[in-house]
């Protein structure tokens, strides 16, 4: 029995309610609903153009749904601007790595704490005592996360020169620095080789256990999703095709049809 299954009875941490997104006549998402419970790893799968990234961008408030609602701990997130999503505990990584290329690893992760700290330009310019205290706390936290993700050796390296796999870990570290309740991972396995994907799967599971996190995994890599997700939602053409345990979704005839084409054709 995992924590996620135990939590099934309690209200969902994140609820996607009948969300539709229309781009000038094209229906990118059509009435999609699902719940995420605390401690769950939820895999969101679907062929290209299924609406995964659209849904993801609704969650991080880059897109506004045409109808429906998204609730975080019971409260709608749709009235919040994009920069006020991190503070309610939604952290994310990006599909093709969106780090701050000219900053060091340490500074990238420090920016991750932005939503959890406060300052103003005058206090910052004068380096007042409370700013120094807050910076000390930030540095402590950043070092802890860097150690956790085995990034201490490159702490002072500018990220643009690092290998792609390391950059992905830096991005994860940056997301963790905001103490998210939900971690949204957009195709974390993209561009990784077989062995790296295996290590990544392990890491995601470890983060969930150690840091009590709930993970939404948008992923093409079926092997990764099926091996680490507790719950899988399959999308196709903007609609929810199937939902259930990895085994249930894998056996679903509609899902098989969407991925492999129907036998009649």
């Amino acid at each position, binding site marked *: 029995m995992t924590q996620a299954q135990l939590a099934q009875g309690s209200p969902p941490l994140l609820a996607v309610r009948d969300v539709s997104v229309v781009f000038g006549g094209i229906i990118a998402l059509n009435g999609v609903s699902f719940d995420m419970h605390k401690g769950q790893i939820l895999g969101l799968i679907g062929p290209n153009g299924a609406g995964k990234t659209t849904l993801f961008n609704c969650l*991080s408030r*880059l897109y506004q749904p045409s109808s429906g609602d998204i609730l975080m701990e019971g409260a709608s997130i749709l009235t919040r*601007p*994009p*920069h*006020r*999503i*991190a*503070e309610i505990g939604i*952290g*994310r990584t*990006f599909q093709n790595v*969106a*780090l*701050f*290329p*000219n*900053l*060091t690893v340490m*500074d990238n992760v*420090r*920016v*991750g704490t*932005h*939503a*959890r*700290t406060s*300052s*103003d*330009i005058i206090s*910052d*310019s*004068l*380096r007042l005592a409370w*700013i120094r205290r*807050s*910076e000390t706390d*930030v540095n402590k936290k950043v070092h802890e996360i860097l150690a956790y993700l085995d990034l201490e050796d490159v702490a*002072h390296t*500018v990220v*643009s020169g690092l290998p792609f796999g390391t950059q992905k870990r830096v991005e994860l570290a*940056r997301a963790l620095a*905001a103490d998210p309740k939900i971690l949204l991972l957009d195709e974390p396995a993209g561009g990784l080789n077989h062995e790296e994907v295996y290590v990544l799967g392990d890491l995601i599971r470890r983060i969930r256990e150690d840091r009590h996190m709930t993970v939404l995994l948008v992923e093409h890599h079926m092997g990764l999703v099926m091996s680490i997700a507790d719950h899988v939602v399959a999308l196709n053409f903007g609609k929810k095709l199937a939902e259930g345990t990895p085994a249930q979704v894998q056996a679903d005839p509609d899902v098989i049809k969407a991925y492999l084409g129907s036998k009649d054709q």
Partner: protein
Amino acid sequence: MSAAEEVVAEGHQAVAAVPKRGMTLGTGTSLVVLAALLIMPIFVKNFIIFQMTMLLIYGLAVLALNILTGGSGQFSLGQSAFYAVGAYTTAVLMEHFNVNYALTLPIAGVVCFAFGFLFGQPALRLSGVYLALATFALATAMPQLLKLNFLEHWTGGVQGLVVTKPDAPFGLPMSQDMWLYYFTLVVVIAIYIFAVNLLRSRSGRAFMAIRDNEIAASAMGVDVALYKTLAFGVSAAITGIAGSLGAIAVQFVAPDSYTITLAISLFLGMVVGGVGWLPGSIVGAAFIIFVPNIAEGISKGLSGAVFGVLLFLVIYLVPHGARQVAILGQKLAGKLRKN
């Protein structure tokens, strides 16, 4: 268009080469530079002291642009407008209201902060070359605004205003020029320290995060619109204080002292000093003050062309400006130490 794009692309490249660690000087170097700046006026004539004062003032204005462009990644060809507002604020306060010159500096800073912050609001919708063009419009409009009839009572219209140079206080035995030099030096050092603190802080990291990737910055909770306008405000405030000091040093303000040429000079100073490298600001300022004189010394008739060639040489040999020279020097020193 393509030429402008190249300038911007070059700027970005220069930005890209500057990690945050490398934004300042080491303690040893700073102390040597500081000592030189402190002792120098004792040995030179008043005119040279005046030139050194102007060097510090332009250095401050270049530093302000460096915070905006090197820090937050926004371009401005409108710095002359902020400089003018600072200069006029000081001139009007001193001559019409008898306010002490030192007090006019923070007032000019606040006025220019508000001006820059407000200008930053519409500028939010623009980026890169388009932002450069919008600020260009501001720079061209400013001298005309200062000549407006209904402002003439305060600004003196085309004639401008004469500013009284302050004497050294407490009966200190030094010339007006020397006093103003030390006064400027203190202001510039204080602002330099504040600027370094700012860029190393949470706010500075937000600026640089926006420069590098706006969407990711926003996902980390950075209010992109707020920090972009704040960067404009801070840059305008510092430029305004430079303008105030400039008005006091030159003892005169007139609309045509603050044309687009000044804005372009400051932009040039930033590129020559190294975009994003704060100590380079003073080197850039030296370039825009002294190199035109050198060019004139080489050929009176063709001074513009000679200046162009010198500028071209600098950009060609050290595209990242003074910062590149500093890094080369550091490497060389490191090698010598090893041997």
